[in-house]
């Protein structure tokens, strides 16, 4: 595959900001098709179905946000897509089609080449993902050389330097940062370095796992906007994993809500926020504090269920205000409610088709 040079596709910051979401280039090409994807952890007390039968599609150029509370399986899903699941976890079933290939069937070596060049991860807590005894320059070059295709021509030292310089500028850092060590950077700068590594091989899909947790609001906004600009510059898709509904509303095109290992609702961000279907999504949106009015805090009563030996009923039933008989009798199937809206709830069985 001939890759365009960085120069050819680079947008200036001003241009990129102007195109911000107004005319997002979401195409009709499927970038990622996940079908019945399941990641289980085998433990002494039973199988933990941390990610169970998840199915969704991501279009090229789309920003998909996966939300859920801690323990809902969102990070397990993201790691599973990268095939970075560690024992006792394993991919139990399902397929992940990326650029027409099923990544669950690739050999370890092919997978290694796929990571970073087609599918990149911007990890949670970038502060801990950088090597403290290596200069930034080395860390960027390391990933780049390790994951790129062997057919690409070797680069000279000066070309590599230029490459790193260019990447740093694109993520909004001074080129001088290349010579620094991680401890000399602020949290936001480290997150930018992690993004530079993530985009160094021009991936089609960027998975960003809570890229801004532990950063303050202004830096968070800058990082998310930079990430969005980079994604648009690469015409890539992005999967944002997190629990901050505010961030999702600001950034994403499509939202997927996870609860107890299952995807319980999927839909365009604007529609889901204005008309949530699944009772969990409704409670989640209602619990958000607002700057417009002061009111009592509304949490979601109860705790999520343990994922070991889940009974044959809806996992949210115990916390659900709209619970009825059927909820205790069977696991709700995913229903299509028209357009791109889907939900897994017995309440809508008359309306949609499974």
């Amino acid at each position, binding site marked *: 595959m001939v890759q365009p040079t960085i120069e050819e596709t680079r947008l200036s910051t001003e241009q990129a900001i102007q195109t911000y979401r107004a005319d997002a280039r979401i195409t009709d090409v499927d970038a990622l098709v996940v079908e019945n994807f399941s990641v289980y952890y085998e433990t002494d007390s039973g199988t933990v179905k941390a990610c169970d039968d998840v199915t969704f599609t991501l279009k090229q150029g789309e920003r998909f946000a996966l939300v859920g509370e801690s323990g809902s399986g969102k990070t397990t899903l993201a790691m599973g897509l990268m095939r970075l699941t560690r024992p006792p976890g394993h991919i139990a079933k399902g397929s992940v089609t990326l650029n027409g290939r099923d990544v669950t069937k690739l050999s370890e070596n092919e997978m290694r080449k796929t990571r970073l060049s087609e599918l990149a991860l911007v990890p949670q807590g970038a502060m801990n993902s950088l090597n403290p005894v290596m200069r930034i320059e080395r860390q960027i070059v390391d990933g780049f050389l390790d994951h790129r295709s062997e057919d690409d021509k070797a680069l000279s030292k000066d070309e590599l330097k230029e490459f790193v310089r260019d990447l740093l500028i694109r993520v909004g850092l001074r080129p001088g940062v290349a010579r620094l060590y991680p401890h000399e950077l602020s949290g936001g700068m480290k997150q930018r370095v992690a993004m530079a590594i993530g985009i160094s091989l021009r991936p089609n899909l960027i998975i960003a796992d809570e890229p801004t947790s532990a950063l303050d609001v202004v830096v968070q906004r800058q990082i998310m906007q930079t990430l969005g600009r980079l994604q648009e510059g690469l015409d890539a898709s992005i999967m944002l994993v997190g629990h901050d509904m505010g961030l999702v509303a600001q950034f994403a095109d499509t939202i997927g809500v996870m609860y107890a290992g299952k995807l319980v609702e999927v839909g365009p961000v604007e529609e889901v926020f204005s008309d949530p279907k699944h009772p969990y999504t409704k409670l989640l949106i209602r619990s958000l504090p607002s700057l417009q009015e002061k009111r*009592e805090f509304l949490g979601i009563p109860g705790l999520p269920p343990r994922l070991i030996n889940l009974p044959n009923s809806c996992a949210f039933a115990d916390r659900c205000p709209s619970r009825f008989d059927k909820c205790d009798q069977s696991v709700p199937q995913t229903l299509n409610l028209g357009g791109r809206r889907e939900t897994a709830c017995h309440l809508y069985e008359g309306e949609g088709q499974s």
Partner: protein
Amino acid sequence: MSTFLELDHVTKTFGSEGMFGNGQVTVAVDDVSLSIDEDEPSITTVAGESGSGKTTLARLLLGSHVPSDGRMLYRGKDFTKLTRRERRNFRREIQPIFQDPFESYNPFYKVDHVLDAPIKNFKLASSDKEKKRMIEDALEMVGLLPEETLGRFPHQLSGGQRQRIMVARALLLKPRVILADEPVSMVDASLRATILDSIRRLNRDLGISVVYITHDLTTAYQISDNIMVMYRGTVVEAGTVDAVIPSPQHPYTQLLIESIPQPDPKNRWGSEPPQQNWDTGDTQMNGCRFADRCPAVMEHCNESKPLQYLMNEHQLATCFLHQEKGEMTNPDITSTFQTEKETIKAIPADMSI
């Protein structure tokens, strides 16, 4: 009106220009005056980004940092001149709650340990029975069931539960002031509500003043009465939340509020704001510290420091844009605060889903 704790023109600097210093002096807190009153307990938010000095301010209030300049007064007495006994009393009366509910526990001890220790230390209970009752009362106060929490190890509890035990621990000591440093930033959004709610109850039901340190202005607006916004050591804006949040006057506060990710897809962020330039040392900046990022920067912003100007009875801003409003006569920023409680609207019954 009796003042519990008072900061009088306090400055705290780190680093030095001396023989062993690297010449870089960081002014973490720059000339701040405030007072915490005990008769009229309120919740005060200290807001700002990382590096704004909010944690240094908290440590000054806890007595774990000594001011480089200015004085701290505890019940009217200079903090450095306290007797042992008074200092011990001070340590009981102001209690911290920290950010990370995972690191504040020793994983080898059951959670009971963090509750036992303060009782032993300050000899609060005369018998085991009394101790047990005190612990149970404190846990119930923060909405935890003693039988579900006691006797467990920290890893067996959720982050929200652990953080609430920390609140209960603080409560045991019957403090006058609780200082909560980002108590919910590491906790899931759905659990935040319960923790903030228990903090709010402490204030309302037990009359404890709360200093809530955060960068999250949404929760600040929801729970606190007053707010002070810090930027690179300076208090740039202060007042009641009802004055400041709906109508921020300092460009930095405006940026902060604009950057909050509102859960509304129809109302998205504007263009990307400029990054902070950490290369300029604090002492090299003669003027306003926000000048290099300020969209409304004027010529004299780089030359001299703005003073605190009083916008109205309940709001001050440290910005030349408001120079004509007149300088504050009382340097104590808490003089703009309001202490009476306003009743918060309960959610209407028809909002069921």
